[in-house]
């Protein structure tokens, strides 16, 4: 298992983020790296707070412990950005 993990760790994946204003930003990430690290840099570029935004992949809300391998992502998959919803 450790050898397989070592082989997978060197592989990169190309993913995309589709913003709430339909802007696309591609990025590259290792398979076993945490997704939150990439998304934090995305906050800096866009200039939004972390509280006001949600990332979802296939209707699944991305949490701190998620990696591309745990979500079974493939090449060229798209992560969507939504603004938080509050209604009354």
């Amino acid at each position, binding site marked *: 298992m450790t050898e397989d993990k070592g082989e997978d760790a060197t592989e990169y994946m190309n993913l995309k983020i589709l913003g709430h204003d339909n802007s*696309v*930003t*591609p990025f*590259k990430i290792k398979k076993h790296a945490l997704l939150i690290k990439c998304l934090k840099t995305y906050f800096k570029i866009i200039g939004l707070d972390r509280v006001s935004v949600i990332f979802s992949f296939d209707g699944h*809300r991305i949490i701190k412990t998620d990696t591309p391998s745990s979500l079974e992502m493939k090449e060229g998959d798209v992560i969507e950005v939504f603004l938080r919803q*509050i*209604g*009354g």
Partner: protein
Amino acid sequence: MAPSTRSTNCPEQLTTMSDLSNPNGNARPQRKCTRSKRIYEGYEMTKITKRTTTKKRSSRQFKKPLLHVDTASSESERPSNVCVTQPNVTQPNVTHSNVTQPNVTQPNVTQPNVTQPNVTQPNVTQPNVTQPNVTQPNIIQPYIIKRNNGEVYVIVSNSDNNANNYPSDRRIAESLFVNIFNHINTVDYNNKIFPGYDLSLITEFKRDLVRKNVNAFLNKKLGLCSVKDLYQVFLTDIWLNDLIVQHYFNLLGSKSNNTIYVLSTYFFLDLKRHGIDEFTERYLKNVRLLNYSKVLVPTHLGNHWVLIVVDFSEKKIIYYDSLDYFASLCPKILMLKQYINLGHIAKEPNYQYGSNITDVCSGISPKQTNVNDCGIFTCTNARYNMCNKSSTFNQEDIPLLRQKLFYEMFYNELLPIE
């Protein structure tokens, strides 16, 4: 006496040798020292430069491949968004800066007049005392509560939450200790809505809620949302959040013995944005819809919560709203009908034409007379529709319903209806 003579002779020899070899007598030891220093400095410099280069390389390697922005539009949006966010922070501080900046400038211009800034500074300190009452955004204000027992609670609030309509921690603390969260007299209702509702249950609530380590308890996680988010439920006049609505609907789905499938609150927004597409088909990937009897779709329209139920047994799409937006939303709901018919029911192996969804109608739900309670109307409508009962509550029942929802989400139980 030989060593003494040697010691006395040696400096003479050195001086003579140095005089012969070099014109400057005391140059040798200095040169040695300087050489060793130079060599040592050189090592240091090389070490420092190597370290800095490695840091830069690592940061470059981190930045370049991770986020490589292609579109020029998103780059152009950087300053605008930053500029939008910053003045929101700085605007309340403008009043401070107007007062504090002259204190910095005046002593630079008129340094000999020491008495004048001494006069002006106390005039400045007074507004600094008064201005924290105006709620500064950057400064963290601890909120201290003293109870009759002598116990003291300290809650640290960031107080940025007011911008997003979240209840601040101060308001949560007030609600806990200043008796907003109270027992409601339910003599007229006969406990139809909240069975087992007593004053003893409220005291149990407060025993769970009030602990010594309040901050650790507020950040405890229950499924999707933390306990702090759940406090929005029983505070009156506060809008519901998407985490809370999703958490409650997941609870409905988990307690239904696999007869109800729950979609996320962002599904309908995605179907509005993209239409029938790859994005929206991913939501129901690996799901056979006809195994379920209902699909609950909590949706969000701008500032309003609305429930859409896809009922496979009656072949209907039912739309519950505490206000009336049915006419404006009808084409989008027809799109959802097409999405389910073509995308999922037609792909079933035992497909028959009669299993298609035919009708789109608006269900009967009680109307809200308020601007704040629509989230609770949708949650309770979903609960009533799950039991196949018509909803029979009113606007007057809502403070009870808020406590009931909070009870159900806090203990992961569903209470029976009537």
